[in-house]
């Protein structure tokens, strides 16, 4: 690990200002992903700003009947919140499908959204990776791509976003609240928060330098049957090969977002219009334009079958 200086942030605005002005500064909250990457020197911040004492650890009801989740609410506490379990079951399900109990106790809501890909070539510092070292190339293109993206990828990057929570946040139309170094706040729809790789896969979100996430809000509940179905190499503590977050209504309509297939949570609203016609028709629109590689072409039928299982589960409930 490279040496770094450390400070505890005293206010959100000051933290944002310091992050924008201090050389090589980064925020740290749960640290479960950042420290892992720092040990491998994939991340090498020169200054760490510990934001753990800024509050942002409550889940409050909003005026329009939704929930405002503080950026520092731990994954365990978000999954266990009675209102989340009752009204946003897909979110609770996605959270407990991810990581281990120890990690969920430390990992935060904002940190979960900001976690980096688990592409093996991003992790291997001896390999080229445009995300780790812009302009160096993408070793995954000619490498083992079994876990990697099938849609929305580019010739510069075929990494996937690893989060389960973010897939549920996408299906729930969550919004990300931030504060910038000048103290101004803004709200970013989750659909616009994560980016596709394009030519700049090292830029992963819409956040500007120093911008700090303060909360994630959920609109009022939409009812329906909430399902998070995750397919992985082992039954627990593994990243998704494919996952489906679904909120399905009795009349066959609904919303779906898919994980494990793209650089961001993958949702296509036009595909949802096909839900009453079934998984095949829906997947045809959802994955239109997919560019799988020989190693990961299995993900296309796997999405369809996982969605079919989710639809069947909703009908049986």
């Amino acid at each position: 690990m490279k040496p770094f200086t450390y400070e505890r942030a005293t206010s959100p605005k000051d933290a944002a200002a310091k992050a924008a002005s201090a050389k090589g500064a980064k925020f740290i909250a749960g640290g479960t992903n950042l420290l892992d990457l720092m040990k491998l020197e994939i991340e090498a911040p020169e200054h760490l700003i510990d934001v753990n004492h800024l509050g942002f650890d409550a889940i409050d009801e909003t005026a329009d009947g939704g929930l405002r989740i503080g950026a520092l609410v731990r994954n365990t506490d978000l999954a266990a919140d009675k209102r989340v379990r009752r009204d946003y079951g897909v979110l609770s399900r996605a959270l407990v499908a991810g990581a281990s109990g120890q990690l969920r106790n430390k990992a935060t809501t904002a940190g979960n959204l900001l976690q980096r890909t688990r592409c093996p070539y991003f992790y291997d510092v001896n390999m080229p990776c445009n995300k780790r070292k812009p302009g160096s190339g993408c070793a995954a293109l000619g490498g083992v791509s079994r876990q990697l993206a099938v849609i929305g990828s580019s010739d510069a990057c075929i990494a996937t976003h690893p989060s389960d929570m973010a897939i549920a946040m996408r299906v729930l139309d969550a919004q990300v609240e931030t504060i910038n170094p000048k103290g101004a706040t803004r709200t970013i729809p989750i659909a616009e928060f994560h980016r596709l790789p394009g030519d700049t896969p090292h830029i992963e979100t819409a956040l500007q330098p120093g911008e700090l996430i303060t909360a994630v809000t959920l609109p009022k509940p939409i009812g329906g049957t909430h399902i998070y179905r995750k397919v992985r190499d082992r039954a627990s503590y593994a990243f998704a090969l494919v996952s489906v977050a679904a909120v399905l209504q009795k009349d066959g309509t609904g919303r779906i977002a898919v994980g494990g297939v793209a650089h961001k949570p993958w949702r296509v609203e036009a595909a949802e219009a096909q839900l009453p016609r079934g998984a095949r028709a829906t997947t045809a629109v959802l994955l239109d334009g997919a560019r799988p590689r020989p190693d990961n072409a299995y993900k296309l039928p796997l999405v369809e079958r996982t969605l079919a299982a989710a639809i069947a589960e909703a009908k049986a409930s």
Partner: protein
Amino acid sequence: MNYTSLPKASRRDVLKTGAAGAAVASAGGSTALASAAPAAVPPRAKVGMTVNGKPVSVELDTRTTLLDTLREHLHLTGSKKGCDHGQCGACTVIVNGRRINSCLSLAVMHEGDQVTTIEGLGSPENLHPMQAAFVKHDGYQCGYCTPGQICSAVSVLEEIRAGIPSHVTKDITQAPPLDTTEMRERMSGNICRCGAYSNIAEAMAEVAGAKA
């Protein structure tokens, strides 16, 4: 076991001596590098926390993890370093009532925290019920993962009692049942390469008063 009968030179002392010997042997080779690019002194910071009920205060290189602080600075070597990346769970300790991977946490971030390690759960003379159950059910073979397994197991039972749902909870709007399916799922962050899992599950079930 009678711990007073252990030989004076422990395996740990032998390892320490070996490491010092290696450092001396390589010193000649590293001198040129050191003089060519003198390294800046890595930043340090002070942190105070309570470990197993005792207040401690240490000054550390900011890079020091909670695990390395416990093992190398406070000499509480029960918590183990397996992968050092949060994948194996050997470093599991309980901080402010919650189990965490101490390898994925910086010590300087634990100002004022209450830390409980395996040494704080029980002693050879006065075992924690979970430690006693691991002994009774043979919940280990080599023992390396065991401190992490026990810290995790104690926390898992509390998490189920607190109503925290898991991936295998059928109805997440209800309190999860205190059964072996729940316990096994929740222990997935603790790897045991000897494969003592079924005995660990039996030990946990006994402490929980559940059927294995």
